[in-house]
């Protein structure tokens, strides 16, 4: 009997010892793509590690906290080439990790989500802004950290209306993404009382982005493109394809400010953001990555921090428990935007203030004062609960 008791005590000692020694290991997959989308402006050219660099910083931050909680985080990266199989890569990552941060175009994200089907893997979209992923194509396993086009457009519209720049000339590119952004801008104009007085389409006829005599040609092209417009206050451009918008400022026929894809740009983050303690994360990011932090970096940082925030609160790395916590009423995350960020339960979109930046400074942060909402002023940005087409199951 005594022997049995001693044995039992020994066992329980071993058990507690093992508990203290072995940290909870939390693997976070990162599913991105190789190659970068070229920008018109050389200074905006993204780095090869755009996005993932933010996730790497969040892993460091999570591990600093984790050492007090006996939790250890690691990042498991896969970056796909254009012809590589998304489903296969997602399945491989899901085999090793309970969480995957996804930075893929809309179709790729849906392929990844659908390939994992009923697994309990939590996907966090840190890259793509398509509203349909949060609406008719929403998935119960996908949390959206990146803002939507409609959130970005609403953030811009609130500021332009506050400025009393209510007459917009809309310039739209010929790519599909440009049209989607233009749709979001039209919706925003209607919602907040602006008028689109005219629309122009800028056809992408191909050709090189950079030529030695480009400037001369552009400064003749852009006035022609914007001439004979009805009276307007601001030129709003939808050019996700990076074909023409950056050429517009200072070259319009009428002397008017430019907003949207160039000029005053709505974004989730900017290297110039220094309010609300942001200087600290900017410094940490530069120290780790030897470059400045972009919106995509911030979205990936926030995604990985949301996981770290949840695991620290519930003291577990189990994906199902983390997912329940993130979707529950007690979750919020601090991300240097002056207020807590929470999830919209109806489509799993992260609520967030949107910065309006001019490339050098943060001009303003939306929601603007006076745009009220019965639940959260952040819900004045994007598609609200009553309008949603998302059915989660």
């Amino acid at each position: 009997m005594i022997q049995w008791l001693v044995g039992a005590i020994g066992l329980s000692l071993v058990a507690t010892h093992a508990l203290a020694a072995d940290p909870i290991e939390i693997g976070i997959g990162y599913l991105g793509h190789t190659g970068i989308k070229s920008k018109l402006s050389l200074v905006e050219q993204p780095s090869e590690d755009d996005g993932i660099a933010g996730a790497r910083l969040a892993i460091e931050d999570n591990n600093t906290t984790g050492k007090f909680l006996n939790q250890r985080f690691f990042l498991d990266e896969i970056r796909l080439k254009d012809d590589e199989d998304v489903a296969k890569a997602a399945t491989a990552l899901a085999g090793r990790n309970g969480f995957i941060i996804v930075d893929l175009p809309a179709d790729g994200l849906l392929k990844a989500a659908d390939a994992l089907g009923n697994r309990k893997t939590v996907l966090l979209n840190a890259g793509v802004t398509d509203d349909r992923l949060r609406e008719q194509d929403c998935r119960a396993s996908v949390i959206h950290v990146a803002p939507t086009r409609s959130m970005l457009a609403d953030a811009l519209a609130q500021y332009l209306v506050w400025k009393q720049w209510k007459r917009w000339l809309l310039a739209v590119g010929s790519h599909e993404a440009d049209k989607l952004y233009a749709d979001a801008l039209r919706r925003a104009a209607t919602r907040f009382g602006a008028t689109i007085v005219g629309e122009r389409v800028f056809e992408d006829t191909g050709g090189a982005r950079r030529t030695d005599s480009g400037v001369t040609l552009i400064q003749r092209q852009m006035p022609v493109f914007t001439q004979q417009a009805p009276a307007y206050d601001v030129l709003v451009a939808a050019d996700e394809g990076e074909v023409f918008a950056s050429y517009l400022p200072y070259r319009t026929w009428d002397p008017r400010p430019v907003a949207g894809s160039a000029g005053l740009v709505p974004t989730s983050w900017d290297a110039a953001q220094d309010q609300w303690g942001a200087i600290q994360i900017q410094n940490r990011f530069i120290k780790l990555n030897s470059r400045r932090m972009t919106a995509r970096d911030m979205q990936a940082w926030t995604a990985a921090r949301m996981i770290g925030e949840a695991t620290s609160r519930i003291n577990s790395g189990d994906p199902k428990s983390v997912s329940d916590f993130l979707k529950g009423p007690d979750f919020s995350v601090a991300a240097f935007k002056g207020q807590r960020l929470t999830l919209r339960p109806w489509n799993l979109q992260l609520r967030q203030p949107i910065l309006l930046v001019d490339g050098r400074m943060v001009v303003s942060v939306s929601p603007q004062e006076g745009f009220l909402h019965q639940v959260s002023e952040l819900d004045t940005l994007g598609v609200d609960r009553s309008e949603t087409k998302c059915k989660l199951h």
Partner: protein
Amino acid sequence: MWRRCLLSGMTMWLAATAPAMAFIAYVSNEKSNTVSVIDTDTWTVTKTIKVGQRPRGIEFTKTGNFVLVAVGDDDKIEMIDTATQEVVDSLPSGPDPELFTQDAAGKILYVANENDNAVTIVDLEKRVRVGDIQVGVEPEGMAISPDGKILINTSETTNMAHFIDTTTHQIVANVLVDARPRFAEFKRDGSELWVSSEIGGTVSVIDPAKRTITGKIEFSIPGLRREAIQPVGISITKDGKTGFIALGPANRVAVVDATTHKVTKYLLVGQRVWHMAFTPDEKYLLVTNGGSNDVSVIDVSAQKVIKTIQVGELPWGITLVQP
């Protein structure tokens, strides 16, 4: 010893002859790179002292001879001589010092350095850095237990109050609190530790012996959305009965029954109210309003704002000599 006798003698003499005691408050103005000096008798700014870049945390030394002010962008702490009201020397710190606290004897300074996840230990007499303690991400709030045995540091992104043994400099406990803990304050009898969470919107009440959260102070102001209520500065009366909590962009100071931990009143002050300090007689509480560039004076017993004093740009911290 001689100095201490003289000092306490002087205090007694002053207390005896001056019933309407005048005190001097020092206010750090984060944007102006200045410190405003306020006379609490006339409630006017009597001097503006030029200091280093981005002054934030500010505190009297225990002797009352110096006011220390952390100038974050210069990576040091400046010493203002209270006799001449001028910067006379500086102390080393880690990168970007923000808040700090002293040990009971006033010999050791513990500094939270936002930029390198560490608390720096500074010898106040020799004016040298003597060590570092690794803590969570973005250390900010600092407090020392009344018995001097435990140092508290809050880390803003890790969301913890770290309990540090002041003898061994080891972390002995970590208490998880709500998002972005900014400030920590003990009751004088050591029975409670209060930690404000700016983004979480709560103040956690911690039992320092058990090192667990025993209650939370919650706020609700009609007409204000929850996100706008961001508790930062905390002051608790010496008798431990009443707490005052600055609510940032809610532009209010909450008066809290420190026994029941319920808010009894909200006092409207200036914009983005941050930190505060009592006059030594606890008749008044002075609070900094960063957004409106002023300091509000609260009559503690009447629980009313009685005065507003214009200071520099973005007033951040405030200190008055404590008996």
